[in-house]
């Protein structure tokens, strides 16, 4: 649990269950809202803001691991990057917005930073979303190397005048009792702060959904898993669109 989440719990006192979960990908998913506290962060996205304001086409690249490839939902169109693209197109009809999915399963921050130039910068994007940290936490990578890789990757993007947004880890109650995410979450959040990159608190948002009963991540029958993943990705795409709208306001 990050401090943001802690503060949120203190402010609200109790969690109120929300109504039914998200729908398919054609309409915006509903029922999986998240508190503004968890979606909003202070760094801005000037490049995105400029293109949106001028109604120019823009490219967003997503660098990430297997949750970015969308494997749990079966295919790339269900993955959250594509869902984000749909959400942005709904919000900004007439502006060509493309989201490129550059997810590769099980990569550490180091490996992702190494392909930042080839996979992200080369596409000339306005914004790079960097989904990172799961493989590092699972392998218990050196925290210092993890944060150094993040900082190097973000600096590289900023040098090319590309906005950067970090997406932290996925949450599920079972994995947290086996894998120590906390140091990597803290490290990622601090680097966002240090390098002035927007942090999308996926972990806290999914935890909020889990606590509030929006989604149930434990004891899911095999037959229902793909559907669950599809809904969660659609919701994450929508919340990412909220975050981008907020940071590019």
């Amino acid at each position: 649990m990050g401090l943001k989440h802690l503060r949120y719990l203190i402010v609200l006192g109790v969690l109120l269950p929300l109504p039914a979960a998200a729908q398919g990908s054609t309409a915006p998913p509903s029922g999986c809202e998240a508190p503004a506290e968890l979606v909003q962060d202070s760094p801005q996205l000037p490049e995105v803001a400029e293109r949106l304001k001028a109604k120019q086409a823009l490219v967003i690249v997503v660098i990430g691991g297997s949750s970015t490839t969308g494997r749990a939902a079966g295919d790339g169109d269900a993955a959250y990057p594509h869902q984000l693209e749909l959400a942005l197109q709904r919000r900004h009809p007439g502006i060509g917005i493309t989201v490129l999915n550059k997810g590769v399963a099980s990569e550490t921050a180091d490996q992702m930073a190494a392909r930042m130039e080839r996979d992200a910068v080369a596409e000339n994007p306005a914004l790079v979303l960097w989904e990172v940290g799961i493989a590092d936490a699972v392998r218990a990578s050196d925290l210092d190397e993890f944060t150094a890789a993040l900082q190097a990757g973000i600096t590289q993007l900023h040098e090319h005048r590309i906005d950067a947004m970090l997406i932290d880890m996925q949450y599920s109650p079972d994995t947290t009792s086996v894998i120590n995410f906390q140091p990597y979450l803290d490290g990622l959040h601090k680097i966002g702060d240090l390098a002035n990159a927007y942090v999308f608190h996926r972990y806290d948002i999914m935890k909020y959904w889990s606590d509030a009963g929006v989604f149930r991540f434990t004891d899911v029958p095999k037959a229902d898993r793909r559907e669950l993943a599809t809904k969660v990705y659609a919701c994450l795409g929508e919340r990412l669109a909220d975050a981008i709208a907020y940071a590019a306001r």
Partner: protein
Amino acid sequence: MATSVARPTRDLRLDFFRGLSLFLIFIDHIPGNVLSYFTLRSFAFSDAAEAFIFISGFTAAIVYGTMFRQRGFLLSAAHTYRRVWQLYVAHVFLFVIFTAEVSYTLNAADNPMYAEEMGVGDFLKEPHIAIIQALLLRFQPTFLDILPLYIVMLAGFPVVIALIHRHPLSALIPSALLYGAVQHWSWALHLYPDEHPWFFNPLAWQFLFVIGTLCGHSQTLGQRVLPDQIWIRWVAGAIVLFCAVISITWLIHSIYDPFPPVLFQVLWRPAIDKTNLSPVRLVNFLALAIVVISVVPRESAFLKGAIARPVVLCGQNSLYIFCLGILLAVLGHFVLAEITDRIPVQLLVNAAGVILMISSAFIIAWYKKASRPPASAAVADSAE
């Protein structure tokens, strides 16, 4: 470990602060624990791990160092290795319990959202290799990393104490050079799987252990542990205050964004480099130790009082209480992850853990006292 060696009255400060560090290690080992934001690490760059290793070196010098002088190298080395063996058995025991928890959790819920990444939890796929690696201390699942460090430190202790008796500098200089080399060239020992480095790099942490041993050694000789100059205390006090102010601004910043984190760009990365015991952590800890020694005199009435007693008892039985603390942290984490991690439940888990640690310490102390022959009952068991 009952020894017939006569020694001066026990320095209860060691027991008290070791006990305290055991509580903090327990609290810090529950991931996401609310209280962990308010332990030493929020007010200093160093945390309980430094205190634990320093005090371990200090007490080793008192117990095995005294024995070295009175009974010779062989016997003191044999006693040290008996201790190393106990620690090793404790580590393997904790490993088995931890593995049981992991196996249970992974089997009870193979996770829909983590299809691929979780596959890296490889050790359940190849237990035959993982178990051998664990016995070789090369496989340290998260949360089980301090004990292997302590084992390696103590295993090197007979050499360190022999060198110190020759001349303190003959131990301190090589140790400092090794530490410096690690800082400069990032030397590391590697673990299974994926060759990731030891969380606590023994090549770096040995320096703090040797410093602790040297301080303990001076105390057994009746020398001052620290030079007596008053300016050293003032400098130490200033360092502690400086680091505390900076750490607190970081803490406030992480709760309330607009508050500026002082020197964050410069100091945050070194401050979290626990693996190699970065110089800022080491300096902060040593300053803290000097301040504590100055502020809490050895004869302080507080240490003998009722409030300090539970903490002192935990410190006097540190191996048992340490293992219990790690075990309770794993269980506590399990409860928070599987049931709920609402703040009242978190506080309850913390309280229950500390109470269990204290009551166990009382039981162990009672048992030791009750089972000793009356004549030697007065001699405290310093080996713990």
